[in-house]
């Protein structure tokens, strides 16, 4: 592994880790944020409607 390779690796891994950590910090420190955060959630409202 060359020094340039090591630099690319450290920069890439460091950047994604920092970004993810900042998101977690923001979610935990913004009031009521965890209730407003959503992902691809498998249970959709149409499942609760009668056929």
């Amino acid at each position: 592994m060359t020094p340039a390779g090591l630099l690319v690796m450290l920069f890439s891994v460091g950047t994604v880790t920092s970004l993810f950590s900042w998101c977690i910090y923001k979610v935990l420190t913004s009031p009521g944020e965890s209730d407003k955060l959503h992902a691809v959630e498998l249970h959709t409202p149409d499942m609760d409607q009668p056929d």
Partner: protein
Amino acid sequence: MAVAGSAVGLGNFLRFPGLAAQYGGGAFMMAYAISFLIIGLPIGWAEWAMGRYAGSLGYNSAPGAFACIVRSRWAKYAGIIGVIVPVIIYMYYVMIEAWCIGYAVNFWSGRMHFKDAAEAVGYFAGFVGAAGDATAMKFSADTALPWLLAVFVFNFYLIYRGLSRGIEKMCQFGMPLLIVLALLLLGRVMTLGAPDPARPHDSVINGLGYMWNPSKVQVVKATPGPTDKPREVVGAAAIAEAEKEVAASGGALKLVTVSPWSQLWNPSLWLAAAGQIFFSLSVGFGVIIVYASYMKPKDDVVLSGLTASSANEFCEVALGGLITIPAAVAFLGVAGIAGQAGVGLGFKVLPLVFSKMPAGAFFGGAFFFMLFLAAVTSSISMLQPGIAFVEEALGVGRRASVAILGMLTAFGAGMALFFTADLKALDTLDFWVGTFLIFVLATVQIIIFGWVWGIDRGFEEMHRGAAFQVPRVFRPIIQWLCPGFLLLVFALWLMRDVFGFDLATLKPGAVSSYVSDLFGAKSSLAAQLSVALVVAVSVFFGLLTARSRAYAKAERGLPKHD
């Protein structure tokens, strides 16, 4: 935790390392990082915002969302691509899901213990039926058929009975566990060193070099023939040996250093990097727009999108990127993995790593089971755009919609299972839908968001309920850079990799195998039928869209339910 959990998928541990290996590590990472910033994040945010807006009018499918935003007859037909992509990808994704559960159970039952790479590669070929068509259609634990049937029925049972809350809860614990397992595996891989003392160049440190070095050192023939390919060498000792080999060749061989800048001229690299961003962030899939439509008006689409993306990038780069390639180089060598791409690398290499670690059967089984869980959530999420579309287009209930989708996807998955020689059907569908159509959909979406809907309106909608403001630099990125980048890379890729043009001289050459598979003397029945399936599904969805009353309302900007 749920957001992070839903972001983890097969693409992180299997597809990403394969592509990075194929396109040469460091340069691929540069294209990948740029793609993340100028296409992944902006298109993701655009999809979240457009989906939530469409949902506020009662539309939950891409054709409905496009129609109510653009308010034109053509928009709903463009939106069909957002249904075709996830439905067709589901047809082959479910195969890979079946491989995961098959590998998990076989590890736990002690059936999988490999002495060397040849054994692991041979087992994979037999399991998926790569040797010939229909060879995986046997009822054996060592072939894909029984696992595919079980997985297909399991998925549809879950969504037909509305049991997805159960699997969602399971994933809330399962996905963090997958990350812990990946960290354990990372620790094991980093301490592998050079497992075979007779081959000291095949080491983890050279694997990391292969993955991350921006410049490549290659041995090439002085006058290469059409089938000659450069051989990459990594590490000071291997390069010194290659120098001796070149000196002894009497001028027949030469050693060249390929800079990252020259690698970045390859449009295929950019398309692969962009495609991976689409695949792992699920942007350009037609999935996010559907799930965002179920959000409340004040939910935070900006932080939701960023958290899901960053969690995914962490798993992909910091875990997936450090495990598979270094382990592959340690066991197979740089020459052994050259040209290997896609998920195959993970299924050939990781089982060998597990075979060589203490309690490998347990960890191997656990790892592939966690991948299976991740795949279940992804595959079910791929069905929702199709389900929501059929519900909306035909005005039917969920169960009827699930039944229609079940029949359609069973036919496609059956085809992918039958035509397994060289995984031709899977590869063809992944190229034309998993790469080509995703690119088209992403381009259409960002143009609609930035130009048709308008950047001001789009930003206003995006920031409703947001915890932070998206930097203003993303306005020109969304309007100019993102569509310009997509169109340029797409045009260069079409010229070079589909129609065979030499971009330096602009002279035409041999067309891509994906094109020659469809026409002429070298055509492949599996490839032709795969493309025919995509066309037939498109026509079917087009007819449903044309007859839909809901979409007629959407075109006029009216809510679905007055």
